[in-house]
Structures are given as C-alpha cells and as structure tokens.
C-alpha cells in the first residue's frame, strides 16, 4: 500500500510541455480514476508513476519516498497497459510468471501463485496457451493476472476495458471494483469514459490539457462541478449551459433535473420550446428542446411528448448551477447567487 504524490511535476516531449507544474496527491488504498478527453495527458501521468516515462522536472513520491531515481521494476507498481502488452512469445503461465522469475521467487511458490491467480481471474484451463489463441477478454485477464501476481502496492491501469465489448466491459467494471475491495491497494485507473469514472471511483481526478480541473468524489463532481468543463464532461447528455447576463455569467442545469410539460410550469426557471428530436432509450427518453436561441437536452421518464410539439421545460432553483465569465463555478452560498437566481427567473419565455 502506498500513496502517490506529485510535486511541481512537469513533463515535456520535444520541449512542448504536456503537463506543467502539477501537484497531485493520490490517497493510499483508494480507487482513484484519472479521467479526461483523449490526449489530455492521462497516460503520460500514469507512465510517470510507473517510471517508464519519467518526469522532466519535479518529484514523484510513492509512499513518501522520492522515486525519481528508482527503476520501474523496483517501485512496487504494476501496470495494465491499454493494449495489454502481453509477451506474445510466452504462454499465459510464462507471462504471469515472468515478473516473479525476475524477482527470484522460488519455483514452488511461483507455481502456487500462478495457479491461484489463474483461478482468481478465471484462466485456470488456459495457462499453457499462447496469447494468440486467446480472446480479447481473456488477454485482458492475463494482463490483470500478470499485474496482480506481483502483489504491488500500486496498481496502475490504462483504459484496461476500452478494447472489450460493452457487456464484458460492464461485467469487468464490477470485477475490478471487487478486486480493489479485496486487495485494498492503491488503484490508479485511467479512462476517457465518464460513466466508467463515475461508477468505479472513490476519487475522480478530472483533467483537461494537462491541467487538473477538479478532484473529488463522483457525487461531488456530479452535484457541484468546479467549472464548466467539469459540468459538461461529467453526465450524459452533458449539462445544458445558457447565457445569463451581460457580465458573462452562465447558467447550467442537468438534463435529468428538468421537467417537461405541455402546460406552463411554476418551476423557478421555465423555458418554452419545441421538441426537435426524441431518443427512446426504454426506461427513459431524451428530448432535444429547441428555443429560438439554443437547444436544451432533457431526460425524462415520460415518452409521450411528440416531435414538433411545443413544450415547457421547468427547472427548480436548487438544481441550477452558475458559472462566472472565467468558467469557474459560483458557489451557491455566495451573495451574488441570489441576484443570478432572479435573473434566471427573468428568462421565462412568454
């Protein structure tokens, strides 16, 4: 078990800084998810922890020790690569065993460990196969077993589920959460998928262009996004954003916070529009409501609203978010919010 600390870390490729002066503390024993759009530097961050793409400047500490000069194999970390990086010439058993052999674990114990891990991840009958004879899901398990067998104090995973089909992905999500519970070690999990982040994380670290946008629990991130980026990245469909006033303040509400009706609603915010599109998802329906200014997404349990019909969208005051001209969240306890709420009421369309 170990915590991970980044202190003033900068990472450059050919003089272009991808990450600049980053400070970050990843708590011991937590399931931390790094999430953000593709190319934002998640993999780069993970590789700095592993030591396979060391920082340009600054310090990385694992369990309080500066590991800048420690080789990847000596850091007590294991990593599941996005493409799994399984050794193609070795059998499943040899793949899992390789790290143990290098660490001079005695043969008897190696055998025992490999068989028990094989059992855990469901590879028992496949230990003597070559990776080329395995399915995507099985390869993913080999990568997982190879990491687990070393009993690392930090578990790094780079989009480990992105190559699996939707059903297997959901199943593996649950298995990884259980694995984390069982092992109790520090997990750092990278994904670009906000659903994955929300469903698995103890702590989400949301990144954009190499900068941490927000670090909090999934609930906090959902209910109190720190800025517009967080508001629009987390949640599906993303939060609706509308201009509020001349000072650049913007108002936001989540598609699932809004109510739909054919009659005018007495919610705090009430917008009149026309249904432009309608997506039936089964348990719920997603509507796009178009006003003369912009479009809003609304998620509703009711599927009775037809396309091209005029409707009212209502949002209660406590579900409204406000963002300043700089994109930052305006705290609901701040004195200005009362004023913005009044302005929002003014948005009622006749």
């Amino acid at each position, binding site marked *: 078990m170990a915590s991970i600390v980044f202190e003033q870390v900068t990472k450059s490729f050919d003089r272009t800084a991808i990450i600049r002066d980053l400070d970050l503390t990843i708590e011991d024993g937590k399931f931390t998810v790094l999430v953000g759009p593709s190319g934002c530097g998640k993999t780069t961050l993970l*590789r700095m922890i*592993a*030591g*396979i793409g060391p920082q340009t400047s600054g310090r990385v500490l694992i369990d309080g020790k500066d590991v800048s000069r420690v*080789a*990847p*194999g*000596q850091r007590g*970390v*294991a*990593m599941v*690569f996005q*493409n799994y*990086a*399984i*050794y*193609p*010439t*070795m059998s499943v058993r040899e793949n899992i065993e*390789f*790290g143990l052999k*290098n*660490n001079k674990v005695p043969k008897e114990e190696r055998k025992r460990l490999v068989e028990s891990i094989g059992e855990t991840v469901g590879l028992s009958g496949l230990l003597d196969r070559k990776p*080329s004879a395995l399915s995507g899901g099985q390869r993913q398990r080999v990568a997982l077993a*190879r990491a687990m067998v*070393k009993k690392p104090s930090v578990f790094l995973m780079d989009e480990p589920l992105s190559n699996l089909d939707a059903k297997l992905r959901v199943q593996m999500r649950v298995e990884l959460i259980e694995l984390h519970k069982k092992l109790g070690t520090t997990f750092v999990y990278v994904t670009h998928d906000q659903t994955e982040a929300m469903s698995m994380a103890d702590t989400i670290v949301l990144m954009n262009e190499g900068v941490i946008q927000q670090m909090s629990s999934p609930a906090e991130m959902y209910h109190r996004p720190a800025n517009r980026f967080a508001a629009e990245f987390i949640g599906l469909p993303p939060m609706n954003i509308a201009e509020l006033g001349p000072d650049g303040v913007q108002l936001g509400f989540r598609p699932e916070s809004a109510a739909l009706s054919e009659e005018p609603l007495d919610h705090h915010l009430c917008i009149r529009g026309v249904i432009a599109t309608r997506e039936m998802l089964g348990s719920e329906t997603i509507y796009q409501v178009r006003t003369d200014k912009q479009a809003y997404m609304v998620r509703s349990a009711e599927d009775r609203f037809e396309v091209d019909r005029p409707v009212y969208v209502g949002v209660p005051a406590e579900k409204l978010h406000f963002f300043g001209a700089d994109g930052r969240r305006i705290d609901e306890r701040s004195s200005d919010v009362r004023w913005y709420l009044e302005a929002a009421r003014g948005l009622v369309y006749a």
Partner: protein
Amino acid sequence: MRNHALWEKLRPYVMIAPAMAGIVLFVVYPVLYLVRLSFYKYNLMNKAKSKFIGWDNYRKLFGNDDFYKSLVNTVWYTVGVVALTMILSLLIALWLRRSSRWNALVQAGIFTPHIVSIVSIALLWLWMMEPSHGLLNYVLQSLGLPTSTWLQSSKTALVSVIIVSVWHGIGYYALILVAALQSIPPSIYEAAALDNAGRFKLFFRITLPLISPQLFFVLVIMTIGSFKVFDTVQVMTDGGPNQATSTIVYYIFRYRSTNIGYSSATGVVLMLVVGALTFLYFRLLSRKLHYQ
C-alpha cells in the same frame, strides 16, 4: 449446361496456366535437364557423340579428392559467413534500432556495399589485401599489429574470402533485422521493465524470440546463398592457392567445357545438399519460431 460445369472445373487451371508454363519452362525443365546431363558423357562439339553412361559421373565425383576438398571448403565458408554475418548484423541492428537521423546515415553507409557489384568489391579487397603494398597490412603494421598473408597463403585465403563476403552482405541483413526490431511494440519493453527484467533476460526472452522469424529467414537465405558462392572466389583467388578456396560452384565451373556431364553431376549433388539442409532447418527450427 454440361459445358458450363466443365468450364467451372477447368477455370482455375486455365488461370494458373501461364504462371505454371513459366515455372515449367524456367525451373522444372532446366532441373530435369541438369539431372539428365549428369548421366551422360556429353560432347559439346558433336551432340551425336554424347553417350549415356549411367552413374559413372557420380562414381568419379565421389572418388575425387578435389571434390571433397571443395565441399569441405564450401561448408567452412558457409559456416563462417552465416555465423559472422548473423552475429554482426544483429549487433549492428541492435545498435541502430533507435530511429534517428544519425542512425539512418550509418545504416545507409553500411548498406552501400550491397548495391555495389560483388566483382568490384572483390577487386577492391584484392588490392587492399595485397600483402606487401596493400592498405590492410599497412594499417596493421602502423598499429603495431601482426600482418597477414591474406589471399596469398592457403592458411588465410578462405578466411579472407569470408571477410569480404560478410562485409558485402552485412548491411542488407542488418536492415532486415532493424526493421524487425523496430516492429516490436515499445510497450512490451515497458511491461518487461515493470517486471524487473534485466538486460540479459530482455534480450533472450523478449527480443530474440520476437525477431526469430526474420533471423530464420536470414539463416536460410544466407546458407543457400553461401553454398553457391562463386564470384568472390573467381575474382579473388581462382580457387587457390593450392585449392584452399575452391568451392563447389567453382569446381563445377572448372569442368564447364571439358566435361559438362561431370559438372552437372556436381550440380545435382549441390542441389541435394542445399535442399537437405533447408529441410533440416525447417524441421529443427520452425517450431521454435514465433509468427505474429
């Protein structure tokens, strides 16, 4: 209807007929003709005087010490060239695997001998290896190292020929191996680094198995090529001194006009030896190969 079905059956054969005609004309027929010739005492001046003599050519061949000498020379030449080229080109490939401008330049330099005719190269080396005025001995001498008689002594002649052949081929094979090394995904090495693999393990457990198909290709191609060596010997030594560099193909060449049947028999033996060796390679090594 019947016609249609017949056409369906024939079509594949008609389609490959042109290619097959080429193969029959240029591969199968010459080989069969070679075998036929080997059973004749052939008269180049007067075809009518040629006569069938059965296994006589072969009997003569296997009773000839010069033939055995050439065979042994060829084997040593092949072993030397294949081993040296493979080891050196692998080392060079490992050195050049990182793609940078400097490495590309070095690679181009090493490759250059391959695009020059072996005859020119042989002549050049012949001149450099001249014992009393040549460049090599001059350099050795000025470095205070012992000089060599190179091509002029039966002790060093074969080694000298081997050196030239290795020098000629190394760039090409290094190029193949560099490409093989560069096709290994870097994440495999990163995973191995996290698995705490040492340099030795990394090379023998990861790198070598992953480039085994290319190494095998180089081994087979070079063995076949080396067994048929001729031009270097012809230009540099004429098989001498004292038969020290006479190889099988050079032996065949010596009898080209005096006894073509005998030459053909030697050619058939060479073909069988190379065929058997290639078969052996596949039997012994193909299971150790890893194809992606």
